[in-house]
Each structure stands twice: as C-alpha cells, then as structure tokens.
C-alpha cells in the first residue's frame, strides 16, 4: 500500500498554504527559543535587573514557551500535514491558517505585556487573562478546521491525518465540556487544571497519530516498503481514534473530582501504547532487515525517534509522584514525535515546496544526531534523578541535590538538554531559512 503522498500533486494554492502552516510551526519553535533565552536572562544575576519585565516574567515566559513549543508547533504541523490530504478548494485552509496564526499572536500580547497570573497546570499551561484563553481557542479552532476537512476524503494515505483530526475534535469537545461543567467560583488553579486535563490527555492521541503517520511515511520513503500491511496500519489509526473517543465518557463523572482525573490517566495507560508498539515493531523490522543509509534524514529520523520514544514510553509506566521521572517521560515521547516531524519536513514537506535539502545534508545529519542524542541523555538523566527523589519543576536549592548520584543525574539532564537545544536551533534556523529566503531547489 502506498502511504506517502505524491509530492508533485500539490497545486500552487496548496503549496502556499503548506508554506504558511510550516512558517507558523517553525515560527512557534523560534518564538519558544527566544522566550527560553529571556527565561534564562530573567534568572541571571546582574542581567535580570535590566529586563523590562518584572521578576514574575519567569513563570509567564515559561507558560508561553511551553505552549509554543508543544501545542502551537504540533498543531501547526497537523495543519501542514492536512494540506496534501485535503479535498480541492483552499479557502477553508487559508481561513484556518489565519485564525490559528491570529490566536498564536494573541498569546504573545499578555506574555510580553505582563498581563495575567501564570498557571503551570498540566498539558496546557495558561496566563489567566481573557486574551490568552481567546488565543488558545483560536488556535484550537483554526487547526481543527484545517484537520477536519480531511475527514471527507477516502484514500489510504489519509488515515493517519484523519485519525489525528478526529482525536483533535474529541480533545476540543473535552475542553468544551469541561468549560460547561466546571462550576462558577471554582478556584482558578483548580479550574485551569481540570479545564485542560481531559482534552490535554486526548491531545496525546493526536500527537501519537502524528508519530505513526511520520513513521509510516518515512519508512516507505526510506525502504520502499510500508512499516505495516494496509489493514493493520489502518487498525492502528482506528484504535487511537476509538480510545480517544472513549475519553468523552469520563465527563459523566464530576470534572473536579479525583475519579474523573484518574479515568484519563488510566485511558492513556490502556489506550495509547498498543498502536505505537505495533507500528514501532514494524519500523524496527524494516530498519534491521533492510540496507540502511545513515546519511539519510529518513533513516536517522526513524531510528532516533524510535529509540527516544521507546525510552519515554517505557518511563511512562514507571512514574513517581511529582518527581523528575514525569518530565523524563514527556520530554522523551514528545522528543520522539519531534524527531519524526523533523524528518517529515526534510523528506516530504520542503521537497514538496521545491525547497529541499540542496547542499545542507551535513547540517541535517547534525541536527538529528544532536537533537536525538541530546534528548536521550536529557530524558535518561531526568529519570535517574527522579528515582533518587529530585522534585519536578524546581530549580536551585529547592532541588535538594544532596548526593553525588542526584548531582550527576541532573548534570546529565543539563548536558543532554544543551545538546538537544543546539540540534533544535540548527533545525529551526535551517528550515526557516529555506522557507523564507532560499532559492528553490529540487528535492
């Protein structure tokens, strides 16, 4: 079964829309990177007193850094991947892109103006300000409209995008139900936690569908053979959609209660692992049993995303409570998704825009090795530190690094993070450069 789309099938309008989504996705990563620099500056003695923002910028900047580097980047990539799978007619696509881009811009206003209190709740942290919630809603509406248009298509190569689109619609329904069901007067921190809890969990089904879509496409590009036979492949995507849909039934429980929260945690444990396990096995089989070109971005993306995602997936079944095993899990699984999306951009999307690799193959190889290797170290260090009892979301003396084991583990976290950031920066600079300025090249 052919699962990769025909790169030459996109017309000029489709290419313009695809370029727009990629600019939004890469712009989100660039903005997240800029905010990370400001976060570091806001914690640097001597420098922190000269910034135009107050001392509480750290938490506000952290919120928007997370939203841009996770939600906006991943959902904009879903928007980009929906372009080749969309039916003819581009008005809806451009309108969706405009809405999502407006929402993203709105997030920056309260962040940079210092408006609203930061809430570091799970999945979708927020600034408590109407503009911020409006921005998030517009991003959700824009990307879901773009993704939902693919649901009318019937073609084998659209199953992955359709699964992601369906799960995104379920996630939005969860956010909506929570907003309706949470009583007025609920403590704002508890409100944010539960407003984004259920939908945030279902968004992980969207991310997993993107991962499988990437694995499937890159395996076919790298080896000329699909990772899985056609029916089994479609069953994987259908399984994700079905498990995500089951989440809606958790809204019969009190949204503010513990059983509601536990229902979603258990849904991830039971509904999420099987599809990536099966397709991951298919990818591993192809990697082991076929000749591999380790200079190929497709092969590098497949191998590294498989390794990083497997580490994170395994850690997900052995988490502690509020220690750094939790960030180990989510950094690694999202790292695995990011690696495969990086692969899709280099192997599929830029060539579709006739802005392919050209002479930059060495830089591409470097970004995969640095980002993938760095993420492996980063996640491993976090996991070991969590085992030793280091609390998550703490810094400085609060971490209580009172043993050599904890110190070394957190040292590995820092070194791995720095290496991964270097790989990420090279990726963003190179791809943004191709999207904005580079001469057209053929794939």
């Amino acid at each position, binding site marked *: 079964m052919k699962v990769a789309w025909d790169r030459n099938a996109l017309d000029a309008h489709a290419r313009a829309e695809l370029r727009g989504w990629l600019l939004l996705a890469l712009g989100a990563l660039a903005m997240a990177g800029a905010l990370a620099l400001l976060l570091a500056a806001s914690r640097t003695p001597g420098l922190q007193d000269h910034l135009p923002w107050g001392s509480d910028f750290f938490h506000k900047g952290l919120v928007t850094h997370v939203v841009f580097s996770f939600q906006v980047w991943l959902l904009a990539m879903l928007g980009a991947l929906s372009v080749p799978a969309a039916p003819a007619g581009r008005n809806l696509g451009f309108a969706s892109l405009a809405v999502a881009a407006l929402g993203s811009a709105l997030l920056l206003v309260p962040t940079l103006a210092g408006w609203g209190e930061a809430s570091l709740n799970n999945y979708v942290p927020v600034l408590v300000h109407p503009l911020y919630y409006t921005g998030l809603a517009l991003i959700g509406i824009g990307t879901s409209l773009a993704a939902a248009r693919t649901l009318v298509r019937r073609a084998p190569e659209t199953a992955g995008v359709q699964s992601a689109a369906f799960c995104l619609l379920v996630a939005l329904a969860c956010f909506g139900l929570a907003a309706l069901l949470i009583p007025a007067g609920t403590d704002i*921190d508890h409100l944010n936690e539960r407003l984004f809890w259920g939908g945030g969990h279902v968004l992980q089904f969207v991310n997993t569908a993107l991962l499988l879509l990437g694995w499937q496409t890159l395996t076919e590009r790298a080896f000329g053979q699909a990772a899985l036979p056609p029916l089994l492949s479609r069953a994987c995507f259908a399984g994700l959609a079905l498990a995500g849909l089951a989440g809606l039934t958790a809204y019969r429980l009190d949204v503010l209660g513990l059983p509601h929260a536990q229902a979603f945690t258990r849904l991830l444990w039971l509904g999420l692992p099987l599809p990536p396990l099966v397709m991951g096995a298919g990818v591993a089989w192809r990697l082991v049993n076929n000749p591999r070109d380790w200079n190929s971005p497709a092969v590098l993306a497949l191998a590294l995303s498989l390794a990083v995602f497997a580490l994170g997936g395994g850690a997900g079944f052995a988490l502690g409570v509020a220690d750094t095993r939790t960030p180990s899990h989510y950094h690694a699984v999202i790292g695995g998704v990011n690696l495969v999306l990086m692969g899709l951009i280099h192997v599929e999307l830029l060539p579709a825009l006739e802005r392919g690799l050209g002479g930059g193959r060495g830089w591409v190889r470097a970004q995969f090795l640095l980002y993938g290797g760095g993420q492996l170290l980063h996640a491993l260090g976090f996991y070991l530190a969590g085992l030793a009892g280091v609390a998550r979301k703490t810094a400085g003396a609060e971490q209580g690094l009172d043993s050599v084991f904890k110190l070394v583990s957190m040292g590995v976290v820092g070194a791995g993070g720095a290496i991964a950031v270097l790989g990420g920066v090279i990726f963003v600079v190179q791809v943004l450069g191709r999207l904005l300025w580079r001469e057209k090249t053929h794939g």
Partner: protein
Amino acid sequence: MADAARLDRLGAALFVAATLGLLAAWPGWRLSDAAPADAYAQQPDDFLRQAEAFVDTYQVGERDGLPLVHPPPGAAIPVVARRFQFWPALDLEAGRTYTLHIASVDTVHSVVVQGHELALLPGQVRVIEIHSGLELVLQCGEYCGLGHTRMRAVGRSIR
C-alpha cells in the same frame, strides 16, 4: 500475495480485538463519584483549631519553619493541607501505626501517601491508617498553584 492479505486481515482482527479488550478493562467505565468511606465532614476553621490544639499538646521543636510534633504511637493525627504545605511536621516512631486525619483548609489539594492518593476538598476530612517506616512522604498530587511541587512533607521516624 493471497497469504500476505490473509495475514494482514488476521493481524488487523487481532489488533482490533486487543484494543477492544484493553478498552473494556478501562476503569473509566466503572469509576463513580460516590463519597469515599474514609471521609467525614468538618468545617475548615474547626479542623484548623483542632490541629492547632494538637500541636500545642505534642510539639517538641521546629523543622523547616513548621512546628514539629511527636505524638504517641496509635494517635489520631490531624494534618492541615494548605498552599503549599502539610502542617505540622511529623516525627513518628518506626514500625508503629498511626491514623492521619488530613483536610484542606483553602483550596482543592490531594495527598499521595504510601501509594494511595486521596482528594482533599475543603470541608471534608480524609482518614488513612499508616504504618510508619523510616520516612513518611506526603505529596500534593493536584495542581494547586505555582508552589504545588513544593507541597511535600517528609516525616522522619525515630527508631
């Protein structure tokens, strides 16, 4: 080719069966909002006064800015949960049994203790019997504000 198609159908059928089996095992179908059997109602102000009286009786010192209590084995210990602490600090005797009465006096928290998570809603006291090891960790498991991850208490045990 026909064999490959048959294998694909079999694989997909097994996958669908496994998915349905996993979803059938999801506790989400069976969970309910019934009030927990270990809970009783008490106004936060009343609970706080009770805890303060307990501290007056059993305080033996201070730890990390909190009063440190050393109650007798078997005692029912009131523990106040509030942003971002469990109050008071505890010194317990290793190998003995105690009963913790834990309640929130401000917003919704939860406490994770010895592998159990209990929701802490203002106005409701949760009761849990604990067997004191060398260390007793109380950790908030419900996001309650920017200091949430600091809401962790380690009770030390005396041999």
